[in-house]
């Protein structure tokens, strides 16, 4: 790999000279040359390909040793390697020929990452917590921007930064570009620290949705800076606020439209399955670019494109295509992320951009941290008052600490206009330092912080067996009561949306065959009479759809078999059909907020039957504890899926048993069936109710 790098340096230094040669001696006809070194012919694509290769090789190096990645997140290591590479090129060239340009970043590297996150977004979780996410994204970001800008300005007035020419507006502009939490950095760091799904979706959702705010704030303040302080009046401010709504909603709407377009297309692609996967990439990218063109929020656009087309794509497309799409997205996203971080490192090694102002930099770092925490605490206090499950203090700390800044901020900083903003270099430098600080330092210390917090929290009081068991009983009870009382999921708007979706959207966007699978179950639910039910059960047992009742290891594929209703109930999983992979254990040891499991894994079974150990290992987790597996590099099923399978099969078996025993103690079915068919009179009500009872029990078996 070193050879490649040296090659790069040589090439880049030789290249300018080559072109000179060409110009000078261009017209000498010296006869036919058999082989010519046509560097300038392939220069650009060659360099690009070479850089991509180098980045991937760096990643290979990093991943070779898992011990290191346990302590230092990948992104930090990539940046460090970027430093080294940058140093080498600087040494060879005395000039930084390669850097992360905003165009490259925003047009070629960012879209696929965001498309991947949108496509693999857990929709139900996302929309359930949408309120909290929006509040954090909008109010939180505005708060960050305002406080940072104002505090820095205040310090400037107080003389803490010496002589720099930055006015209030420019400070606010700077604040707005530093305010946004970066999705790329968040994923990279949170991948190591497994937190519960709600926490993850809050931080992650916020990092995605705050793009709408950032774009608006940045443009508004940019315009203000251009106009100069005097021209700002109420009208401009109102325009700013209106532009926020336009940008945010416009972007989302545009993305939704593209998402629906993709779904519609996927409905018709039965005959060209080989190109099916291509559509989403192309249309996703177009969604991004169209939003850019219309100066709407491009990140929001591509996120909603992915979010909307998920369901229909997965139902309509062929298995192979689904796999291809998922995997290809991960490849591209991973690749882009690698390149971004490497180049973030390289861009730093450039003497021309470095301006150092201790006050400015240190104060920025300080304020960013402080205001992030304050913002999170205030907002969560406010949100907790109406949340069913309050966000605990530890989780709030993690949310605050997880407010990482990344490449988006850097990209925006480099885009600043030098003529209007004299201190652009200072801003770029500070942005870089903040990015390094958050990604490297906060990334490295995130895991130890979580562990430390947990150690404090666990406050090792040894629980008795009774307490352990009873705690679990309480958890399951609460979850059950929540479901019965319809606290979660049974929502007026949810139901309305579900009905609308079934009636109109599914009809339009799902392939007829995909819809039939869902419909068949509905028909079972609505139309069975007892005799049909009995036959169906017999047939089912014969054909194997009820196989799981007999065969304990049969794998029930929830999404395919039971469609909507169960999709809601399951923790969102990207299910693979292969039961074998379900047994694959988590390869990367991870820290979670559940310290018990972390400790217990270390114990060895050879120590003998230890009741506590057994219980900890094997007690089923309740829904609150399901860990969400959003990972850039792993596509496996959440291993809790097995637990859920077991519970489901057991429950259904026992229900079917009670149904069968109920059936035994009643008059032969034939007569009762006749009654319901011909005489819907009050006389027959008891048996009618009996029929309904058994019908619905059967439906429970199926649903």
């Amino acid at each position, binding site marked *: 790999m070193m050879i490649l790098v040296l090659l790069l340096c040589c090439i880049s230094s030789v290249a300018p000279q080559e072109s000179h040669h060409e110009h000078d001696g261009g017209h000498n006809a010296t006869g036919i040359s058999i082989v010519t070194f046509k560097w300038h012919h392939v220069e650009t694509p060659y360099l690009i390909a070479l850089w991509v290769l180098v980045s991937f090789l760096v990643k290979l190096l990093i991943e070779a040793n898992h011990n290191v990645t346990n302590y230092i997140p990948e992104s930090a290591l990539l940046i460090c390697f970027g430093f080294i590479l940058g140093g080498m090129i600087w040494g060879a060239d005395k000039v930084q020929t390669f850097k992360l340009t905003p165009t490259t970043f925003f047009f070629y590297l960012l879209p696929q990452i965001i498309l991947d996150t949108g496509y693999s977004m857990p929709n139900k979780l996302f929309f359930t917590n949408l309120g909290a996410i929006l509040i954090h994204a909008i109010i939180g970001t505005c708060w960050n921007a305002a406080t940072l800008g104002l505090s820095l300005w205040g310090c400037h007035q107080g003389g803490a930064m010496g002589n720099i020419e930055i006015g209030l507006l420019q400070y606010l502009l700077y604040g707005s570009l530093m305010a946004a939490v970066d999705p790329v950095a968040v994923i990279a760091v949170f991948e190591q620290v497994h937190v519960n799904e709600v926490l993850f979706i809050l931080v992650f959702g916020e990092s995605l949705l705050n793009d709408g705010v950032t774009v608006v704030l940045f443009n508004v303040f940019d315009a203000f800076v251009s106009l100069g302080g005097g021209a700002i009046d109420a009208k401009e401010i109102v325009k700013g606020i209106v532009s926020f709504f336009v940008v945010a909603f416009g972007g989302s709407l545009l993305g939704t439209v593209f998402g629906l377009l993709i779904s519609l297309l996927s409905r018709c692609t039965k005959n060209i399955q080989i190109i099916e996967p291509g559509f989403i990439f192309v249309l996703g990218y177009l969604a991004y670019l169209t939003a850019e063109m219309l100066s709407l929020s491009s990140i929001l656009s591509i996120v909603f494109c992915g979010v909307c087309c998920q369901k229909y794509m997965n139902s309509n497309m062929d298995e192979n295509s689904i796999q291809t799409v998922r995997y290809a997205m991960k490849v591209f996203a991973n690749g882009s992320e690698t390149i971004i971080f490497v180049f973030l490192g390289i861009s730093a090694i450039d003497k021309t951009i470095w301006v150092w102002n201790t006050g400015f930099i240190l104060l920025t770092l300080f304020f960013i941290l402080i205001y992030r925490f304050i913002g999170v605490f205030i907002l969560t206090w406010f949100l907790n008052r109406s949340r*069913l499950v309050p966000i605990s203090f530890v989780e709030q700390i993690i949310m605050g600490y997880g407010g990482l800044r990344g490449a988006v901020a850097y990209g925006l900083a480099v885009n600043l206009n030098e003529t209007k903003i004299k201190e652009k270099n200072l801003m770029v430098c500070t942005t870089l330092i903040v990015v390094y600080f958050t990604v490297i330092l906060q990334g490295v210390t995130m895991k130890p912080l979580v562990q430390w917090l947990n150690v404090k929290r666990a406050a090792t009081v040894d629980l*008795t*067996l*009774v*307490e352990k*068991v*009873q*705690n*679990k*009983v*309480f*958890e*399951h*009870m*609460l*979850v*059950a*009561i*929540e*479901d*019965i*009382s*319809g*606290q979660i*999921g*049974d929502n007026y708007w949810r139901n309305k949306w579900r009905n609308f979706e079934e009636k109109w959207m599914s009809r339009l966007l799902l392939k007829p065959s995909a819809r039939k699978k869902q419909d068949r179950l509905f028909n079972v639910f609505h139309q069975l009479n007892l005799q049909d039910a009995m036959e169906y059960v017999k047939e089912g047992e014969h054909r194997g759809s009820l196989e799981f009742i007999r065969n*304990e290891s049969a794998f029930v594929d929830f999404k395919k078999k039971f469609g909507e*209703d*169960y999709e*809601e*109930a*399951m923790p969102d999983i990207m299910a693979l059909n292969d039961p074998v992979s379900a047994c694959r254990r988590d390869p990367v040891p991870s820290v979670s907020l559940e310290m018990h499991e972390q400790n217990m894994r270390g114990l060895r079974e050879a120590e003998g*039957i230890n*009741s506590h150990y*057994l*219980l900890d*290992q*094997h*007690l*089923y987790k*309740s*829904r609150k504890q399901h860990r969400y597996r959003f990972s850039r590099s792993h596509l496996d099923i959440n291993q809790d899926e097995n*637990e*859920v399978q*077991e*519970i*489901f099969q*057991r*429950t*259904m078996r*026992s*229900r079917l048993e009670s149904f069968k025993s109920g059936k035994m103690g009643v008059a032969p079915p034939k007569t009762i069936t006749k009654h319901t068919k011909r005489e819907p009179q009050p006389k027959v009500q008891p048996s009618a*109710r009996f029929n*309904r*009872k058994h019908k*619905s*029990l059967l*439906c*429970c078996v199926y*649903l």
Partner: protein
Amino acid sequence: MGSRASTLLREEEIEEIKKETGFSHSQITRLYSRFTSLDKGENGTLSREDFQRIPELAINPLGDRIINAFFPEGEDQVNFKGFMRTLAHFRPIEDNEKNKNPPATEPLNSRTNKLLFAFRLYDLDRDDKISRDELLQVLRMMVGVNISDDQLGSIADRTIQEADTNGDTCISFQEFMKVLEKVDVEQKMSIRFLH
């Protein structure tokens, strides 16, 4: 209430339920609409099948037991009052309630009543004792298939040992309460009902 379940809940009934359970007016109406949406037969009562139709309960290890807890001894239907009475156990305990009007009987969501509800989950035969078998049944429901019957049996034995003070190899309600006295039952067994 008539042969067809009316969608209107009468004011007097709401008042009654309010007094008995402590839920607020809006909570009661909200839960009533949930009740009616579960009641597919539209006869004003819920049967076990109505509960079983909730998909999430099928993947809850204690789902069927909890459904059972809604039905009074030997009955197969539960009306709205019974529904609310069971749900009332899960209301959070509020301090200011004690000051306002000290209720004549212990409120349904007191610590003792909450623990009694939990106790009854184990004690199916209602003999006020959790026998080894009953404990084993519940443990089996909550644990994966990887634990053998012997191992589970020894866990059950140890658990009973911890709680049993009078040596009858069963856990009575008093013993149950005693062994859980350090547990924050109020917090672990309450959910905030939405308005």
